């Protein structure tokens, strides 16, 4: 399970064995993997057995602490929340798709306008048509003839 910090399987001495038991407890599967073979050999010695017995005493107490299995309610709430970010992700993709289509449409409109400008004769001046004093009957602005009245 655990991996060796030094990367090699060195011969085990009592000091290192005790240090590993201090850190990882009495179960060798939790020890650094590359030290497990040497540790297994050392564990058969009287000194090794004594060290492991001491570590096992604490392990036995730690093992009494259990955490409740997650409730179905919690499971369901978490699964339900998954829909929100996933849907948001899809909406974000759709929004970008819409933005892209709008861009294509706008580009088409600009191109069409440019084409019309090039191939059609001059229309009456916009300035004239859009003059605020103009009506369909012609200029309805102040009559020059009445300015002196």
């Amino acid at each position, binding site marked *: 399970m655990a991996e060796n910090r030094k990367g090699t399987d060195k011969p085990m001495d009592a000091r290192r064995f005790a240090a590993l038991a201090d*850190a990882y407890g009495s179960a060798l599967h939790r020890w650094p993997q590359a030290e497990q073979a040497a540790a297994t050999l050392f564990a058969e010695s009287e000194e090794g057995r004594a060290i492991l017995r001491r570590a096992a005493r*604490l392990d036995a107490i730690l093992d*009494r*602490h259990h*955490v409740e299995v*997650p409730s179905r309610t919690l499971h369901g709430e*978490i*699964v339900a929340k*998954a829909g929100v970010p996933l849907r948001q992700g899809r909406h974000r993709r759709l929004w970008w798709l819409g933005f892209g289509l709008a861009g294509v449409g706008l580009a088409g409109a600009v191109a069409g306008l440019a084409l019309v400008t090039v191939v059609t004769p001059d229309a009456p001046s916009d300035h004239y048509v859009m003059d605020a004093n103009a009506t369909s009957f012609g200029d309805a602005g102040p009559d020059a003839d009445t300015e002196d009245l």
Partner: protein
Amino acid sequence: MGADPDEELVRRIGAGDQAAVQAMVARKLPRVLSLATRMLGDAAEAEDVAQETFVRIWRHASGWRQGRARFDTWIHRVALNLCYDRLRRRREWTTDELPEVPDEAPLPDAVAGDEGRRVQQALQRIAPRQREAIVLVYYQEMSNIEAANAMQVSVDALESLVARGRRALQAMLVGDERDD
């Protein structure tokens, strides 16, 4: 580091696969809940942390790429950060600093059936970084390298933290018993 056993599931979640969402919750919720419960010593807060951890998983699944850390290591880091946020908030509320030197006085003997509670109390009395190291290595059964990655420390530092934590727990829970 070999192939990440969670990578395919994460990819499917990113693609919006609801069955993968169910599978991920079944696979990881017990681990996240165990981690948070032991770090915080409070079942309700641990459930909140579990929920927040999964919200982050859903949010980041589509962009997940395996880097140096496995997905399992990453979610442990996320959950631990959320636990530390809560521990900090508690400290702000109580205005007490977390003790640098844990109180290692032996805890009273447990009555039958109450041993788990005694262990929980002892875990809450040791320094949070030592608790984190013990929870990752002992209860979550992470390798020393994965645990060191999750804690963002060297393997030597991890080994020191977990050994000091176990010695403190030994003093509280076992006392000074000597080998027969």
